[in-house]
């Protein structure tokens, strides 16, 4: 049963006030303002994204998914399984080679973004989060190598301890301590990498994929200075499409 509002009273006013008092409503509104659904899950990309070099970011994420999945199985089954059974060897190898692929494609992604100066257009946080992911991925891999429970792990940890002692962190990051290294490898570092990757992707969605340098305009300007209005023809098209924003 509905109750009629008295004349002159705004029926929604109290509801709106309540909504803005709620931190969940404020967070939701800020999130939707920063990243509306059509930007969060776009159904198209600018024309310049149609290039192989733009695939290495998503290839890094695909490798990371395989790393997390295979690592979860290894964590469930334990060292005896990954050392002494055929299936264990298989998942151990999948985990290793997914890491190799992750670093391979992440480095190519880094080069691709460096040479288009991907921090342009307010994207500095995208660049910084990417750089931090790369730096955290290195000790994540190192703690994995020293957690293998074999002679290889012993060799790597005894070599690495000298480097870490020389920079003064060996006392609280002891690579010869399997329990400590395994905890870092299966919990703390992956948590940091996954959280930063999520933030990195959301920042890319917020700012759009960085466009290439405006080659067409620069060629046209150069042609105008040289008195050749046709200069630059044929170099266009790469900036078409928009959507990413500069």
């Amino acid at each position, binding site marked *: 049963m509905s109750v009629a509002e008295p004349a002159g009273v705004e029926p929604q006013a109290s509801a709106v006030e309540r909504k803005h008092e709620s931190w969940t409503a404020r967070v939701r509104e800020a999130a939707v303002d920063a990243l509306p659904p059509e930007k969060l899950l776009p159904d198209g990309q600018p024309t310049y994204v*149609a290039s*192989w*070099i733009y695939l290495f970011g998503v290839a890094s994420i695909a490798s990371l998914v395989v790393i997390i999945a295979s690592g979860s199985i290894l964590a469930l089954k334990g060292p005896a399984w990954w050392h002494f059974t055929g299936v264990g060897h298989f998942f151990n190898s999948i985990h290793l080679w997914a890491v*190799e692929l992750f670093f391979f494609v992440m480095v*190519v992604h880094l*080069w691709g973004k460096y040479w288009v100066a991907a921090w342009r257009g307010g994207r500095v946080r995208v660049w910084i989060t990417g750089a931090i992911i790369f730096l955290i991925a290195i000790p994540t891999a190192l703690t994995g190598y020293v957690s293998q429970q074999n002679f290889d792990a012993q060799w790597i940890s005894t070599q690495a301890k000298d480097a870490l002692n020389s920079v003064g962190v060996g006392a609280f990051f002891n690579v010869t301590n399997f329990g400590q290294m395994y905890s870092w490898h299966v919990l703390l570092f992956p948590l940091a990498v996954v959280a930063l990757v999520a933030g990195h992707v959301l920042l890319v969605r917020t700012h759009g994929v960085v466009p290439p340098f405006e080659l067409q305009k620069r060629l046209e300007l150069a042609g105008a200075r040289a008195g050749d209005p046709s200069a630059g023809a044929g170099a266009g*098209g790469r900036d078409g*499409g928009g959507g990413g924003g500069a």
Partner: protein
Amino acid sequence: MIVLAAVFNLNHPAHTVDWHFIHLSVANVVVIGLMFVVFALAIALPFPGAERRRRALK
């Protein structure tokens, strides 16, 4: 029991490339070289459908 041999003989210390302070295993040099090759190909090779999309926008 059938024991499969490795494709390469691994029963020796790694071969390395040494130049001044640079000291890299051949395996790592190969991987770094492959990264350069893949990077160059990713820029040089045309992406399927890219030209059609660009023409459609003109």
